[in-house]
């Protein structure tokens, strides 16, 4: 053990982030509520610096740190950048909302960064233990964030449900990991892969563990039948938190799944493929069909998330590098879309009024045509209507399953996305064809307006020029999966 083994440089972003969080906590202690803007500015600055450090320490091949416990590879780097951007947008969108509800505290910002740190670890871990601790760091921060809104019974309930079910899912995951350890004698992903490939591992134990691991992962993604928490937590927690849960953590969960299933248990692809097919079909079906029956838009978006996770799984099911990069593309696109959707809900909400019902969007076009248009972009993109980027995302994952011969699965997913189009278009109908019932003006801070507009227009621009991002995903995947 020496400094060379430690090799901290690849983890410099995480180290900086942790230092910055501690500083922010200290600084925030000395600030009054009126000066919370300073903490906010520091948090955004931290994110910006993290992004800069991330870019400047980029390497086109994987490098290891912390005695091989931590890896920095192009895929991780790209996802981390996306997570910084996402968290940045989440904080910008939620500032006004949280302030109006009196929960815009330093802890909110610090816990958001803690969650981000947890996600970074999930993305970069190469060992089941560090993967798990990253996951717990994220989850714990999220539970606390939801519970921060203490006056709200619903939020407390949501936090409780999330916590208990999350603990159960962690239990499943750990049990599965212990089985894998039993079969291979190691917890390093690379060594696990080597042991399985070498044929020395106990196959029954492995697959038995795999079932539990897949269940735990499915919970984190929110795939059916491990999805029950999603609608309740989305509905119960404040809109800002629902947005946060649905955004960056999905990116982290995607890489988390990829590291475990592909980099660790890649040799068991024949087994987990089938499990993921079941999860994907159920998620797409139940997500899309149940969403139709929802009148609460947060719940509707929750079911929409479930169905999107089904689509994401399609890319993983393929078990090919193209499929993985398609899934990565899908995840990034999904996060962009979901940010816009929730961003609009936050913009329409105001002090004392929560935009929660579908009816609350009635006549949005008459109230503010620009936000209606942005929401329209998000909805069209989620429905997968060209030329918005959601279309290419769906196309890419569906193509990847067609390529491995699962045509029926492709057909099912197309049918499901058609069913899904119904409830997305219903939102558009409410916005454009119904008369407004609420005349209060929509007041939004300029920074949020700018970021939200850029975010939504990106859906259109990426839809017209998807190639660059798609190629980035393919490249990152290629550079990262070859090693390890």
């Amino acid at each position: 053990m020496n400094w060379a083994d430690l090799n901290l440089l690849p983890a410099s972003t995480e180290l900086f982030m942790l230092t910055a969080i501690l500083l922010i906590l200290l600084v925030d202690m000395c600030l009054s509520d009126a000066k919370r803007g300073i903490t906010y500015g520091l948090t955004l600055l931290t994110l910006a610096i993290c992004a800069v450090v991330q870019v400047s320490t980029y390497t086109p091949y994987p490098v290891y740190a912390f005695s091989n416990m931590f890896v920095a590879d192009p895929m991780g780097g790209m996802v981390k950048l996306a997570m910084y951007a996402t968290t940045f947008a989440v904080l910008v969108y939620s500032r006004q909302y949280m302030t109006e509800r009196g929960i815009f505290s330093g802890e909110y910002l610090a816990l958001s960064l803690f969650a981000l740190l947890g996600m970074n670890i999930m993305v970069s871990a190469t060992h089941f233990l560090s993967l798990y601790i990253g996951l717990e760091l994220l989850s714990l921060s999220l539970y606390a964030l939801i519970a921060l809104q203490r006056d709200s019974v619903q939020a407390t309930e949501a936090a409780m449900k999330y916590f208990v079910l999350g603990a159960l899912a962690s239990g499943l995951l750990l049990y599965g990991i212990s089985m894998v350890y039993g079969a291979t004698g190691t917890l390093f992903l690379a060594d696990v892969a080597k042991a399985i490939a070498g044929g020395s591992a106990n196959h029954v134990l492995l697959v038995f563990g795999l079932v539990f691991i897949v269940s735990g992962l499915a919970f984190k993604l929110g795939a059916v039948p491990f999805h029950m928490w999603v609608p309740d937590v989305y509905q119960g927690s404040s809109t800002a938190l629902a947005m946060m849960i649905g955004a960056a953590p999905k990116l982290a969960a995607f890489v988390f799944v990829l590291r475990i299933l592909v980099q660790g248990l890649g040799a068991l692809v024949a087994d987990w493929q089938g499990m993921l097919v079941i999860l994907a079909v159920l998620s797409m079906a139940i997500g899309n069909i149940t969403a139709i029956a929802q009148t609460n838009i947060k719940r509707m978006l929750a079911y929409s998330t479930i169905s999107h996770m089904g689509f994401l799984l399609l890319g993983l099911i393929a078990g090919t590098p193209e499929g993985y990069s398609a899934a990565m593309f899908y995840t990034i696109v999904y996060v962009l879309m979901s940010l816009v959707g929730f961003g609009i809900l936050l913009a329409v909400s105001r002090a004392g009024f929560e935009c929660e019902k579908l009816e609350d969007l009635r006549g949005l076009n008459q109230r503010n045509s620009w936000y209606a248009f942005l929401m329209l972009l998000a909805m069209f993109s989620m429905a997968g209507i060209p030329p918005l980027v959601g279309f290419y995302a769906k196309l890419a994952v569906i193509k990847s399953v067609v390529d491995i011969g699962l045509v029926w699965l492709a057909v099912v997913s197309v049918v499901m996305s058609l069913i899904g189009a119904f409830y997305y278009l219903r939102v558009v109908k409410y916005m454009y064809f119904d008369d407004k019932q609420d005349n209060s003006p929509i007041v939004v801070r300029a920074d949020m307006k700018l970021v939200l507009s850029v975010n939504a227009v990106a859906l259109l621009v990426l839809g017209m020029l998807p190639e660059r991002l798609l190629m980035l995903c393919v490249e990152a995947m290629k550079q990262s999966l070859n090693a390890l």
Partner: protein
Amino acid sequence: MMSLYLLIALSPLVGSIIAGLFGWAIGRRAAHVVTILGVAVSAALSLKMLHAFLTGQAEVFNAPVYTWLTVGGYEFSVGFLVDSLTAIMLVVVTSVSLMVHIYTIGYMQEDPGYQRFFSYISLFTFSMLMLVMSNNFIQLFFGWEAVGLVSYLLIGFWFKRPTATFANLKAFLVNRVGDFGFLLGIGLVLAYFGGSLNYADVFAAAPALASKTIQIFPGVEWSLLTVTCILLFVGAMGKSAQFPLHVWLPDSMEGPTPISALIHAATMVTAGIFMVSRMSPLFEMSDTALNVILVAGAITALFMGFLGVVQNDIKRVVAYSTLSQLGYMTVALGASAYSVAMFHVMTHAFFKALLFLAAGSVIIGMHHDQDMRNMGGLRKYMPITWITSLVGSLALIGTPFFSGFYSKDSIIEAVSTSHLPAAGFAQFALLAGVFVTAFYSFRMYFLVFHGKERWMENHDSHHAHDEDHEDEEVTADHHHGLSPDETPHESPWVVTLPLVLLAIPSVLVGWFAIKPLIYGGFFKDSIHIDAVRHPGMTELAEEFHGPLAMVTHSLTTLPLWLAIAGVVTAWVFYMKAPQIPAKIKSTFAPVNTLLEKKYYLDEIYFAVFAKGSRALGTLFWKVGDMLLIDGLIVNGTAKLVGAFSGVVRKLQTGFIYSYATTMIVGVLALVTIWFAQLILR
């Protein structure tokens, strides 16, 4: 070079975006300045490029610009192919567009949609440039659809007029038919020609497929190339308004006149001609397809000319003459004389744009009255319009030394050297067409510029709307004809300047361009002719001894005398003895009705396709929608979804323990499925 080409294509787009999105902010003046600037940059650069090609300094440029999407091994990219064919189209498009931009300043002066209009025409220019610069089918198709889209937008520009929206819809629907064929053609290309949509790859793959056949109906073998070519040509028929898909073009005159000049005369309608020329390596391999092209072109050339004879709306006369001239170009394609067709595209673009703009000038002078029966003697009031119209008409009918003469005569010569079975019919149709063209052109010319000032005597008649006339209904903000005591005035300089500028090439371009363009091997890199099977062009080249010799030669051939006969007949009918046409009209009433009803094609289409499809639609609606979809699928699905959601909702109790149970059951199910063998044993 790449940046130069990008600049050519993108500068009109920039103008369009600025005028379209920020037109409200920057005002009218800035809107036209910025769009004209954009197009002027394109035009100047195109001219420079054409010069480079003419002097042999430029090389064929073929490279991708941006890979747009890769799906399933198929690459869809934006790419430029710039060769002599492109260069000539670029010059035609940008220069006519520039003229039209300038002209619009005067023509649309009072229109509330001024900035929108400039944005549209610049957008059109951009789309057209992308179309002609494309190096692959997919971009070609996008450009194709984009020009179509702008064309629909512009036909319906005065969307408050019901006739305009009808014409707009008609153009849209008829073009869909053509596009359907075109898309099928592209599909065949993608499926059989090596899986690439790049021209170069497709042309390289074509020779190997010469004898390949496909089965469309079981048991009937079709040559792949013939089917592909005919389908592609169906696309060209829609866009270039060839019989029987021509019906939209006359109605498109509902749009503002600058549009008629730019889109429906000079550029967009020649996209079909351009496309077939571009695909010459494919078409050369299928004699059947060439015959089809010959027949379609010949019918269009002659029969659309007849219709021009009975029209009273000045713009419609020019519109039918456009149809007829497009027929000429198509015939040239069928005779494998692609270069001649392109030559005619160019000359026609200039003189037909000139005629349209002159007609527009007349319309301005007549305060938006388009009926020729109310005009007459305008030469005194609008001298510049008069002279330029005369130049345009002379060019159109093929007067020696005018540009139209060289291109049209070359087409007729080319057809006479073609050995295809349909060439005989085509040649006859073209010759007869020469007479008809001369007749209706000068009928219009005499009615408008000579004779008595009729608006002074029978002004009332144009308020009594008869059938040809109803499309003249204009919105309230337009003037409604001249009152008897008014006199028309010459249009402002922004209107007459383009007329003069267009008149110059209408006269000169033929003389100077025929040798380099057709016989100088200018198109050798872009047009491929199978000289063994279609030796027409080589024979033509042997007979060519320079532009002057062509004139002397023409004195001994039929077309010139037919044209003269046409002019004389028109003079007799409309200047000397105006009672004759009326007499003929009554004697041959059925023929006249047939012509006035445009061969009843609109009625037939309406009865067969519109009513038929409506009946079919009703059937489907009753049986399919009401019974199956509404009854079973929609309501059934709704019920199913409702029931399903009900079940799911029951599971979604909100209690943690039931969620946890669900998760455990999920794990259990997975375990059971994956270890069924072990457990059941």
